[in-house]
């Protein structure tokens, strides 16, 4: 289920929280259906098993599933073996009731457990992850001439997460385990109604997040033949809470051949923590006042105009305000970003304000296909970015990391970018999809630390420094052809990723070479109950890594993606 009310590109803004849970659908006639799926992938010995049952009638319906996914170590295109592991099992259950015509009530639950997940780029592995999501939803549609629909929804999710370094060589020096428990609960009420030629969507939503977690570090030392054990407990989150309540509205109207949409959202955001950690040095407050609350305004307005034939122009502008997350406010010394630093939260962060303009052109011809080109430009005030803090103020607590960064507000940054896509008409036997996208970010005044022989010896300002961790220009092409009334479909895909040479000098971000990968798949449906698909990813066995792939913490080594993978999937449906 999706709670998308207000969306601004690039970053997650309020209301764009996504909670996935299975949704059952009613059946006109009593029915029961099932799906059994098995998949295998070479290279990392991947296994996927999935079993699903769904059924019911118009008034009562259900859906339940369960499965397992497991992957092991893989060999990259450069023939290097990366020790990884990933084992997840899951169950879901959902049931729906049609209380009366057009009134639907749904209950759903999902449980997901991960064990022994090995992260090659991190100094620790996931020992256990238990995630539960439950939701309740009531929807009514077609209420009358004015009120159109009403939705009342609530959800709850909990996560128990344990990470340790017990299987790492560094554990011989020091063992560490971090256990975090998190809860997220919320809900929304949304109604839509018609006022003249206008359609209005309005509602309220609320979200409560709680996180609490602790790191235990154990060090064994041998002195004069005696073994001593030192233990330290630190909080990574200490009973931290975040509450967000929002009220929103959206207006859709039409003036002549122009569609007009305007949205407004007001959020009250509040956070606090029971932290006893306090960090003030030389009159600089790094971590002290724990409570913060904000009243955030977000709005957007856009028009869509048909220029000629099936050629549309869409323009929109808006302000999206994003409060700092609970992690950005309160995390204490964990490597939670893509670089090799421990991160410290900042309880006094200000919300990001993103002023953005979008322009989009859409063109559709039934026999040619649809084209979309769009571009955006945004100015972000109080952009949240990690800033190095000196080791005299705080030292890292994770083995292998090189320092501590604290989430801080950068006064102003700007981003710009574009997307292009083409999709061939679905009625054609041949199919072609092509996409391209790029984003460029700039920090007008970035601070760079000067390093000489491993020592930080000074600092300087880098003007117009590219923002770190921005993916490069990327494009993809996919070609397919439907044989035998779509029963046999070969598909060929190419992904082209440009080198990322526009990297942050201040962050000493490394450039990444470009790469091309190719994949081929074949799906065959011999009968309505059986589907078989097989293929190969990274056909050329190219060695490559994404720009956002972590460098392996504690080394200069980059984390390569898997080399060539053959796979096969078998599915039975009834």
């Amino acid at each position, binding site marked *: 289920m999706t709670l998308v009310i207000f969306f601004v590109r690039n970053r997650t803004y309020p209301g764009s929280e996504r909670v996935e849970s299975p949704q059952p659908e009613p059946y006109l006639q009593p029915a029961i259906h099932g799906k059994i799926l098995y998949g295998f992938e070479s290279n990392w010995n991947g296994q996927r098993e999935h079993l699903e049952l769904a059924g019911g009638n118009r008034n009562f319906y259900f859906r339940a599933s369960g499965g397992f996914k497991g992957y092991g170590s893989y060999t990259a295109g450069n023939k290097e073996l990366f020790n990884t592991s990933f084992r997840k099992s899951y169950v879901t259950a959902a049931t729906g009731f049609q209380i009366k015509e057009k009134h639907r009530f749904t209950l759903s639950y999902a449980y997901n457990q991960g064990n022994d997940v090995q992260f090659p780029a991190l100094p620790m592995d996931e020992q256990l992850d238990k995630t539960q999501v439950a939701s309740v939803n009531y929807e009514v549609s077609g209420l009358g001439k004015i009120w159109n629909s009403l939705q009342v929804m609530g959800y709850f999710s909990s996560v128990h997460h344990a990470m340790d370094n017990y299987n790492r060589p560094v554990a011989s020096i*020091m063992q560490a385990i971090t256990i975090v428990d998190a809860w997220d609960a919320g809900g929304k009420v949304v109604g839509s109604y018609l006022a003249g030629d206008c359609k209005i969507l309005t509602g309220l939503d609320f979200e409560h997040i709680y996180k609490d977690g602790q790191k235990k570090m154990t060090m064994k030392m041998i*002195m004069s033949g005696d073994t001593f054990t030192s233990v330290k407990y630190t909080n990574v989150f200490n009973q931290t809470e975040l509450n967000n309540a929002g009220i929103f509205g959206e207006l859709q109207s039409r003036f002549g051949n122009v569609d007009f949409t305007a949205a407004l959202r007001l959020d009250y955001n509040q956070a606090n923590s029971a932290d006893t950690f306090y960090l003030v040095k*030389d009159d600089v407050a790094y971590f002290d006042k724990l409570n913060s609350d904000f009243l955030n305004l977000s709005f957007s307005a856009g028009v869509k105009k048909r220029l000629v034939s099936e050629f549309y122009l869409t323009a929109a502008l808006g302000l999206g305000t994003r409060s700092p997350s609970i992690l950005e406010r309160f995390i204490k010394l964990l490597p939670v970003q893509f670089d090799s630093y421990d991160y410290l939260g900042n309880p006094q962060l200000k919300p990001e304000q993103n002023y953005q303009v979008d322009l989009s052109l859409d063109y559709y011809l039934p026999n040619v296909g649809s084209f979309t080109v769009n571009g955006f430009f945004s100015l972000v005030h109080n952009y949240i970015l990690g800033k190095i803090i000196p080791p005299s103020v705080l030292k890292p607590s*994770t083995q292998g990391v090189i320092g501590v960064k604290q989430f801080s507000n950068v006064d102003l940054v700007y981003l710009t970018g574009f997307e292009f896509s083409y999709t061939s008409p679905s009625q054609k036997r041949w199919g072609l999809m092509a996409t391209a996208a790029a984003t460029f970010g700039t920090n007008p005044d970035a601070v760079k630390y000067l390093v000489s022989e491993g020592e930080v*010896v000074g600092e300087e300002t880098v003007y117009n420094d590219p923002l770190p961790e921005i993916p490069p220009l990327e494009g993809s092409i996919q070609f397919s052809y439907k044989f035998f009334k779509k029963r046999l479909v070969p598909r060929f895909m190419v992904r082209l990723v440009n080198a990322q040479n526009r990297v942050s000098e201040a962050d000493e971000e490394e450039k990444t070479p470009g790469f091309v990968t190719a994949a081929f798949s074949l799906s065959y449906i011999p009968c309505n109950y059986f589907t078989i698909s097989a293929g190969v990813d990274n056909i050329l066995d190219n060695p490559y890594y994404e720009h956002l792939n972590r460098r392996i913490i504690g080394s200069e080594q980059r984390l390569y993606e898997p080399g060539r993978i053959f796979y096969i999937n078998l599915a039975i449906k009834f």
Partner: protein
Amino acid sequence: MNRGLAFFIVIFMFAGGVSCNKKKEDPPRIPAGNVIFAFHHLVDGEPLHKNELIYTNAAANDYLITEVKYFISDITFYKSDGSRKVVQDWKDIFYIDDDIPETKTIRVFDQIPAGEYDSISFVFGISEEKNQSFIYVNPPEVFMAWPTVLGGGYHYMMINGKWKDSTGLTMPFDFHMGIGQLYKGEGYNTDSIYAFVQNWFIVNLPGSGFSLKDQDTLSFQIAMNIESWFETPYIYDHNY
């Protein structure tokens, strides 16, 4: 200086500047310069030769040195007008290891205000307030950890080596310094520890007055006379 440690200092001065990528006006800067410390380890006035049984201490023990590593912290510059500047803008604790050449040079991040200075001092080891367990989790500093039950934090110093005992056998020694313990009764059972002793101390470098001009870089050569650890203020005999 009365803890058996002898330091001497030589000052060199280089004219220098800090590179800068300026494109617009920066705020007015305070006249300041840079400071570099280079550490040397000597025995009997000569550079240390490790793993060679060529030294004899004041107790007539023949000995060799395999490792020398220690912390210094809170480097302080005292100005003639009574003010002082503590090195802490980037790092305040420095690890020096004879086996890791880059640790033997400290390029001070802090901009030191220009002017006349009377002297320089530093803490040998780490002060009680800063010497907390688990502040270092990565090598090489993590190998200096000091058990919590013995006071926690980190060794101030490790000098490891070997000596020829009274029977002629070559035996290892670990000459370590850290937080001390006071024990109730006899013996050294950790359950009988009732107090800890902070053994860090301040080293005032002799003859360390200097003059620093705007944008100058001064280089200080600091030597540790290792044999002094075994004779000042008391003669230390490895056989007892």
